[in-house]
């Protein structure tokens, strides 16, 4: 077996078959100093959640880099305004680092609001703002008063936790918007879709399904959303929350304050997609036709994609996949989706899973599957080789590693260009996997790295 050095601190973040059954995964912790982690920061988490709000101003208070790297890279589509695709930065200079950046922030906000008349503004604090101690909240309050729009501070200083804390900071900001709009025309059978960011147009698909069932979608948080719909989100009867981490906080606070219950959902893979629709139908069981409509929809949609899925499965059966994604919930869905295609998952990991997530992951996976938390590239490549994976599903930093190893790759992060959610999405995912796994380019690989070679 290949050996690579693994820090003692990290041993409990990797689970393998020979480990004993009482193994408790260590996770939910900060990366070790000196690691080549694939993770990002608090600010990144907040940016992910809020960025798709297309008619809001997103001002990044900090030095230029934090803004430059997040300029239109998330692929969250808007059907209307494109204001969120611009990059606004206070571009802090040495003077402000010494004397404070509040004045510059105030000036920037006023200039931007005057120029664009956005419906709300979000101000993201980056690390340095936390150190120099600008009172961002006070500046926001003042500008809000003067300009008459919501100006919301997002406390996303990068060092104050992990990406998950960034989700929370974003939810805090969103929560201030919720409850300020008019809810009178909202139907009793209505939902908010939380944690769906419309990458590749996925929110449009999912919204369409629910609407076909006769469920009103009050807001999508935050894919292709507008400030106005977020304001009235508290009028919905149910929150449907996607993903383990990103927006559960908001669902919880909305439950506490407005009594809106929430359920979890995943839209990836046929099984989970259907369940997401049925669960909502079950919640509105008092309205009989909803369940019925859901059944019809699922039946039609599945019938439409199944024949081709079967054909694809014939080629993919027995192939092995490695999954390394941001949140564990996505890994769950992907495992099911890959099973549907006859593939076997040999490595499953996430950047931000918690103990419960990893317990579930272990239960779901076949014996022998390696499970990792916050892995580094050496670990990932070691297990990919050892387990002879044919496919890697991951994000931007994993793609070139997979290609260097000579195996197929599928981006299931924000660089996916087509919807992979929903029933159509499952078919697209299957096609994409099929294309990459069966591509003749892997025939050009000089040789598959054998065990022990790095």
């Amino acid at each position, binding site marked *: 077996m290949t050996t690579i050095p693994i820090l003692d601190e990290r041993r409990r973040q990797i689970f393998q078959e020979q480990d004993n059954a009482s193994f408790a995964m260590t996770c939910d912790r900060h990366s070790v100093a000196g690691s080549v982690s694939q993770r990002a920061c608090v600010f990144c988490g907040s940016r992910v959640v809020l960025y798709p709000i297309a008619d809001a101003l997103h001002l990044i208070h900090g*030095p230029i880099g934090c803004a430059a*790297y997040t300029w239109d890279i998330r692929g969250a589509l808007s059907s209307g305004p494109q204001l969120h695709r611009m990059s606004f930065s206070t571009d*802090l200079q040495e003077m402000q680092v010494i004397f404070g950046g509040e004045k510059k922030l105030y000036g920037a906000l006023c200039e931007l609001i005057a120029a664009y008349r956005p419906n709300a503004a979000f101000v993201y604090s980056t690390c340095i703002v936390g150190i120099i101690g600008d009172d961002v909240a006070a500046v926001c309050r003042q500008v809000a008063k003067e300009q008459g729009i919501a100006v919301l501070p997002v406390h996303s200083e990068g*060092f104050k936790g992990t990406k998950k804390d960034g989700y929370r900071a974003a939810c805090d900001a969103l929560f201030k918007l919720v409850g300020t709009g008019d809810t009178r025309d909202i139907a009793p059978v209505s939902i908010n879709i939380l944690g769906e960011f419309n990458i590749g147009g996925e929110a449009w698909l999912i919204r369409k399904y629910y609407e076909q069932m006769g469920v009103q979608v009050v807001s999508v948080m935050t894919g292709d959303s507008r400030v106005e719909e977020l304001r009235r989100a508290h009028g919905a009867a149910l929150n449907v929350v996607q993903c383990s981490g990103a927006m559960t906080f908001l669902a919880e606070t909305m439950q506490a304050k407005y009594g809106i219950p929430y359920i979890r959902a995943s839209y990836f893979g046929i099984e989970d997609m259907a369940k997401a629709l049925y669960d909502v139908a079950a919640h509105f069981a008092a309205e009989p036709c909803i369940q019925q409509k859901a059944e019809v929809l699922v039946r039609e949609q599945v019938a439409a994609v199944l024949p081709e899925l079967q054909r694809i499965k014939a080629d993919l059966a027995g192939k092995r996949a490695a999954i390394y994604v941001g949140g564990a919930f996505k890994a769950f869905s992907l495992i099911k989706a890959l099973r549907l295609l006859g593939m076997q998952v040999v490595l499953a990991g996430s950047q931000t899973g918690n103990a419960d997530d990893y317990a579930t992951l272990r239960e779901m996976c076949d014996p022998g599957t390696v499970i990792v938390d916050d892995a580094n590239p050496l670990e990932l490549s070691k297990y990919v080789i050892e387990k002879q994976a044919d496919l890697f599903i991951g994000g931007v930093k994993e793609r070139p590693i997979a290609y260097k190893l000579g195996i197929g790759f599928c981006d299931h992060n924000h660089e996916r260009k087509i919807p992979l959610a929903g029933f159509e999405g499952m078919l697209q995912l299957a096609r994409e996997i099929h294309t990459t796994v069966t591509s003749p380019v892997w025939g050009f690989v000089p040789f598959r790295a054998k065990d022990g070679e790095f």
Partner: protein
Amino acid sequence: MLLRHTHPEIKPRSALTVNPAKTCQPIGAMYAALGIHGCLPHSHGSQGCYAYHRSALTRHYKEPVMAATSAFTEGASVFGGQANLLQAIDNIFTVYEPEVIAVHTTCLSETIGDDIPQIVSKARADGRIPEGKYVFHANTPSYVGSHVTGFANMTKAMVDYFAESNGRKNTTINVIPGYVEPADMTEVRRLASEMGIATIVFPDTANVLNSAMTGKYKMFPEGGVTIAQLKQSGSSRGTIALGTLASGSAGLAMDAKCKVPCQTLNLPIGLHDTDLFVDALHHMAGVNVPESIDLERGQLIDAITDWHQYLYGKRVGLVGDPDQLLSLSRFLTALDMRPVYIATGTPAGKKYEQSLRDTLAGIPDDVQVKVPGDMFLFHQWIKNEPVDLLIGNTYVKYIARDEDIPYVRFGFPILDRMGHSYFPSVGYRGALRLLEKILDALLDRKERDCSDIAFELVL
């Protein structure tokens, strides 16, 4: 209209940057450090910065980009990052086994005021740095300068830490290639070796960020300047530093530290600046320019004369990094084109701006130069009076699409096309490639727009 929110009326802005034409220091430092063989760049700060830098470089090169982080938490931001860096050095040498760790700071560690040399010497005293391995550093606060500054600082740190004079002069010549692509670094070396000159090129990202697919994953690819070469660079006969902003400070440091005379030139982009580079090599090494190089030069001139009629008077807008913009402007004016709008996000200084303006002095049009500026302003200029061609990084494509202007990708980052890491844009061959791209863009547009009658087979 993706940039529909850009309005043509130009108002002075004091407090903000919109659609930046630069990014922050550490990414430049990381890129430079990757040009050392067996080097793991290390970001001394919190986890997000380096994740962004790695992702951005990965998107540009489509290659794995390795770096480590001190992973600051709240504690580190209050008490300083010494403990984090010490632990990081330990862990990196245990797990990843690089030859050298190149530490750069971030805004956060700079503001806290961590003293990196002190921490590194403590690490050495504690025996955390294995025999024969190295840790060196550059300060890269992003609230000063830009990614170009970070590149320059890390390149200078290579001199400060490693270059040493052995008391004699070797026949080698140091070439500091500037913030250019791996293929460009290969090209400057090739030109020199064509003249029979042995060079030490640093940094050198060739075969690091454009490495071959082998079926193996290598944390440290084959390429990069070695520490041994960096040490020897102090005994070279001379140094040619290409690009004042990216390479100038390293060249001067080498002169000051090891008495290796340095000549700072423009990046060898285009005919004249390549001539100057070849000439400098010729004088410094005391060798003749071989016929093979005369041939390359002659071919470039031949192509220019063959096609110049399609270039004459074309108005061009350029966004990018200062060293590139200066040489490119000189090349474009030599082609009888008119670079009328030029913006860089990097604060390159008055002297730089003056040389740029001097280059553009002969252009009859209203010329706009902004140093430092951003792409929003650049777009506003275009809205007020359009250009025939845009040259810049991938972010320029929004403007190209909205304003329907032919566009050549050039600079950093390029996130959506291939080629930049394989084909040089420096040297005579690089100029030939730029010429080809410019002509393709202009002529494709001409043929798209012209009437059936004017549509010609032969151009």
